């Protein structure tokens, strides 16, 4: 009898030891990254059976706050941390771009003609200065397309989102008036008189699809999956480019990226660079408190920006350019435990 009890005890101790050997990595933040993380976690736990992940997609702002109060091992955000926020963090933080995404400017016009638009027109529409589809500026770029005398309804995201951050970052960088008034952020003040705020990519897509004359910005993957008509945009080099994984990667490859990886790639200078694109970051402390968890986290991050990029590409995130990956790997080697 005693033997049985002992062996049962021993067995359960062994089990406990085994579960202890598993490292749990906690993360929180961006909803934009969530699909990529889900696929990555699934693939990575097959490579390293001793790691478990717990990611709460509570939004970038929430993820950063959790990182600052140190309830998570990493935060994920669609916008880099601002200086004043970094100042409140209890340790030095490092940014690592993990995915890049583009945004399509989708619209709803009778007959769904493919339109060419430039920065002046897009910002003019969102400022409320261009209010009709047959505005002379739009006609000038689209000879041969019959444009209706239809009012433009500007659709934007009502929920705070990284998508809005990237789009307003673009508007701010191409239009000084926009930069001075509304500026860039996850939520901003929208000046156009005829406008609607819709919740989520699906909300914006739904509004644009239903309302003749509507225009809105959605994540590239979303526009593709929903067969929406979107504009070809004139980039900084003066070429008209469609949003694709290649043109978004090109934007990242030609953008100037500082050493702390807090950058913006909107309106990038490359020949084939698509102008409305942005990255999403994982943010971690330079000095990891728990050595074991820290080491596992760093190997996971190294994997996501190398092999993991093939997996995220299947979800329409553009792959990180090689040069950026090499620089990130170097910084990841400087993490202290």
């Amino acid at each position: 009898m005693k033997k049985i009890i002992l062996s049962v005890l021993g067995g359960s101790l062994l089990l406990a030891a085994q579960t202890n050997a598993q490292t749990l990595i906690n993360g929180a933040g961006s909803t934009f990254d969530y699909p990529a993380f889900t696929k990555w976690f699934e693939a990575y736990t097959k490579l390293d059976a001793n790691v478990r992940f717990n990611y709460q997609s509570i939004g970038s702002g929430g993820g950063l706050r959790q990182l600052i109060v140190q309830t998570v091992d990493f935060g994920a955000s669609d916008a880099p941390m601002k200086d004043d926020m970094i100042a409140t963090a209890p340790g030095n933080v490092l940014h690592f771009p993990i995915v890049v995404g583009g945004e399509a400017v989708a619209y709803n016009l009778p007959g769904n003609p493919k339109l060419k638009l430039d920065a002046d027109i897009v910002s003019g529409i969102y400022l409320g200065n261009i209010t009709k589809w047959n505005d002379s500026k739009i006609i000038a770029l689209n000879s041969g397309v019959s444009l209706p005398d239809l009012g433009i309804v500007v659709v934007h995201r009502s929920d705070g989102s990284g998508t809005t951050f990237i789009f307003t970052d673009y508007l701010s960088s191409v239009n000084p008036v926009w930069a001075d008034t509304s500026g860039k952020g996850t939520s901003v003040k929208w000046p156009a008189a005829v406008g609607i705020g819709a919740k989520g990519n699906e909300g914006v897509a739904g509004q644009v699809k239903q309302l003749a004359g509507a225009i809105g910005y959605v994540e590239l993957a979303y526009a593709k999956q929903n067969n929406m008509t979107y504009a070809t945009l004139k980039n900084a080099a003066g070429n008209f480019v469609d949003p694709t994984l290649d043109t978004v990667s090109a934007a990242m490859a030609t953008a100037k990226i500082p050493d702390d990886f807090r950058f913006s790639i909107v309106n990038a200078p490359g020949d084939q660079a698509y102008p409305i694109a942005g990255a999403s970051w994982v943010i971690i402390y330079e000095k990891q408190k728990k050595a074991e968890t820290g080491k596992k986290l760093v190997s996971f991050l190294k994997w996501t920006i190398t092999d993991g990029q093939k997996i995220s590409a299947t979800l329409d995130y553009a792959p990180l350019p090689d040069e950026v990956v090499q620089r990130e790997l170097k910084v990841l080697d400087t993490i202290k435990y």
Partner: protein
Amino acid sequence: MNGNATTVKTMEANAAGQWGDRAFKWLTLSMALSIFVLIALIGYELGSGSKLALQKFGWRFLVTNDWDPVNEVFGAVPFIFGTLVSSAIALLIAVPISIATAVYITELAPQWLRQPLITFIELLAAVPSVILGLWGIFVMIPFLSATVFPGLQKWFGFLPFFKGPILGSSMLAGGIIVAIMIIPIITSVSREILRSVPGLQREAAYALGATRWEVTRIAVLSYAKKGLFGAVILGLGRALGETMAVTMVIGNTPQIVPSLFAPGYTLASVIANEFTEATGNTYLSALFELGLVLLGVTVLVNIFAQLLLKTFAGPSVKPQH
């Protein structure tokens, strides 16, 4: 001897009963108090969360229109306006429908129809708000903007409420969604109240030669008006705080315009929309203060409604419990 024993027993039973009564009283009291404690805690949390915004904006928060997260200028007026207007529209639509339904079920409907009707209304209450919101976007709004809104504009377009371009997502759409959500609660509570009107009331009225309509009006509705008013207040509480479905159809634009075809924005919606991605401390604090304002608006509207009841309804017999 025998009698004595019984007396002792009863006294013992009484003592035990008294102890039980006391325990019961304290138990219920503590449960009732826990609600006060909960509200006080919510108020305290909201207050401490919004300290930064309170210090920075003071009263201006309650009287200005600007909501600019980038430049950190915040004012709550368009959201208060949107909350009150969408709730008013909802009540305007929901109250007649709900009370008429409740009257039909309790007074007029044949027995075999009652239970199916009640079940359907309860089913409506069980629809999750995000589902109702999606239905709003993909079914209700296209229908409204194709038929109802142009019709309203054609016949009542001279009124400022029905002017301007029809975008679909609008204050009116928001009000209608809220109405759909509060109909079940007002109907169910009203039905219970009408059911509690004693049969003698009705019989007395019939005996006086009243018609069915007169019986319903004098003996039932008039008798139950305080209770019905309470049902409406319950619905109003839901309407003020309703979030997800409203967000999906109201257009989320902080503005104050008379047209109900124009998009609006409510307090609950802006909190739900912007809280997760709010990074700046002032911004976050301003959102907390919106929560505090929502709590305040709810309390004020309730007080106002109680006053209204006292002034206009006059003394009436409360439904028996």
